[in-house]
């Protein structure tokens, strides 16, 4: 049986911005290839500004100015050998057929994503009416029941967003993403705005829900500890490109790409008293990304070849892909 749910093929996209009469292209996602499997939690990690959110937007089909797609496909596996390219659909079609039916979204910055002037229950109603064609009265019953199942007090249905704590709001947003039982849930920095304790609780809850619903979840975060907690497989992104993909254990125990190694060595570890080395230099300008390997200006192992030649993502070990020209020679 086919266990793929989503295949991202040669995906490139970015922002067209006008500045002082010149049109710049911000190359935020460049030639990304990922296969995502059924019932897995896939993590995407990388520094701020490397294009993680943009990648999510593209594969969700939420493309509006200034974001454009350069090339590539996002294939949704509907049945065993039938694939639907999300990017080939029209805006309205994606909205009606894909969003919340197959894929739903847990947005970044949960503090301000609920409409301050409508009630919590209205947010649920909107989704039920738009995507499941369930009307008011029935929907209302359903919502109360659903929130009960999630262990949320049913009093909050009548609350306004500002009356709830940040953690509560985040739970609501997660509940909103799961109410239609979509196959895939995208989560963009689901807990960044919360304090560490609340963050832990929510992540555990999120992981528990995923195991229960057996859906696929793609979690984007710059915070590797979140991936350590939830992700089964991780893709490391640098300057619009995926530089390494493998199972969590591999990424954390024996990372192969120099960027991943630096990223991990800058994390504090329990019981380790040596000084952490940060990554020197700053992330590249995505309007004019470096030629060759995009990481070369900051890479300690850089050789001449890296400056000239752009490395492809290749399978270095079983189930462990990396994009680095020096992998065998080091």
């Amino acid at each position: 049986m086919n266990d793929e749910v989503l295949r991202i093929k040669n995906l490139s996209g970015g922002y067209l911005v006008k500045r002082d009469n010149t049109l710049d292209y911000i190359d935020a996602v460049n030639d990304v290839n990922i296969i995502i499997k059924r019932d897995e939690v896939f993590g995407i990690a990388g520094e701020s500004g490397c294009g993680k959110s943009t990648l999510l937007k593209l594969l969700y089909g939420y493309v509006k100015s200034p974001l454009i797609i350069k090339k590539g496909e996002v294939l949704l596996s509907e049945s065993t050998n039938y694939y639907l390219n999300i990017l080939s659909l029209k805006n309205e079609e994606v909205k009606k057929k894909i969003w919340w039916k197959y894929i739903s979204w847990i947005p970044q910055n949960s503090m301000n994503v609920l409409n301050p002037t409508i009630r919590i229950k209205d947010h649920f109603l909107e989704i039920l009416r738009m995507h499941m064609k369930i009307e008011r009265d029935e929907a209302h019953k359903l919502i109360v029941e659903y929130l009960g199942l999630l262990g949320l007090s049913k009093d909050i249905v009548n609350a306004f967003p500002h009356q709830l704590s940040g953690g509560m709001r985040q739970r609501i947003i997660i509940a909103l993403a799961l109410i239609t039982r979509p196959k895939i849930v995208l989560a963009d920095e689901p807990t960044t705005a919360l304090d560490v304790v609340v963050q832990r609780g929510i992540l555990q809850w999120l992981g528990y829900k995923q195991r229960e619903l057996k859906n696929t979840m793609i979690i984007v975060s710059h915070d590797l500890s979140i991936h350590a907690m939830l992700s089964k497989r991780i893709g490391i992104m640098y300057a619009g490109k995926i530089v390494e993909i493998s199972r969590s254990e591999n990424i954390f125990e024996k990372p192969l790409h120099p960027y991943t190694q630096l990223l991990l060595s800058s994390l504090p570890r329990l019981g380790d008293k040596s000084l952490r080395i940060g990554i020197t230099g700053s992330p590249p300008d995505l309007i004019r990304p470096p030629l060759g390997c995009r990481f070369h200006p900051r890479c300690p192992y850089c050789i001449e070849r890296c400056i000239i030649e752009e490395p492809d993502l290749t399978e270095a070990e079983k189930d462990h892909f990396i994009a680095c020209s020096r992998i065998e020679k080091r």
Partner: protein
Amino acid sequence: MLPKHLIKYFLFRILILLATIFTAFTITFVILKIMPIDIVNNIIARSMAVTGAALGDPEAVRRMYEIYYEIFGLKGTFIEQYVSFLNRFLTMDFGISILARPATVQEVISYRLPWTVALLVFSTILSWVIGNIIGAVVSLFEGSKLSNILQSLAIILYPIPYYVFALVLIYIFGYIIPLFSLTPIRLPSNIFSLEFIITVFRAMTLPALSIIVIGALGWWFLSSRAMALNIISEDFYLYGEIRGLPKLHLLKKYLLKNILLPQITALSINLGTIFGGALLTEILFNYPGLGTLLYQAVNAGDYPLVLGIVSMSIIGVAVATCIMDLLYPLIDPRIRYR
């Protein structure tokens, strides 16, 4: 039953209303009191010349003198001056109008007031609603031709006072397209006849139009558009889009709902300015409201009537602002459920 914090809010707001009216009158008192004395004598003499002769009644003349001396703080101790002044302003008791004698100032004003209130309520609400909706809708098409045209138009209209724009309208409709009469209207006696409605409508159209065009396409359009552009880039709006909500729903529940609440506050702050502009607009169109009355009173040197209208305006605008503030929590759920 209203929640406790709301009752507290209401009581507090009414207290503010009283304090506002009270200080406004005190300020007027001080301003009138520092008027040079010869000017005061001058205008008293002038009014007496008009009224004294006409009334032909020494008792009436004596009362007139009394009112003037009280209003300009020329009689009795300071406290007495202040108290009698406040008393006159609060009750609008300025005696007999010179212009409309033997009617009192109160009578003349109460006859004209409904006209002004009708014009203001009608045109203010309409311009507010139209301007805000256009502003929000246009923000969705930012950068399009229509949006650019409307914005340029708004920038031209924005700084023009109603009454200057009214002159343009008069020129267009009075001369080029003579649809509406600009002569003083005469009302049919039967209030329920069709003729009455038509007359009122014709009297009201042009002054209302000048207020609505400037208000809607200038003021409210610009501020609503600016707010809408901000909201469109806010997280909750983007999340609404991401959830695939229909466009119309986003416009109603996400854009307009979040624009209209602050715009209500803006409206209540600007009520005084809108009111002043409307008074002057009335004059140009011979509309039978307080503005035209004020014009006639000024020209006839009818000080009692002018003072009456000033006092009426202060109380009227303060009360209207207060009513809007009292209604606000009933509209904004966030205050209601705190």
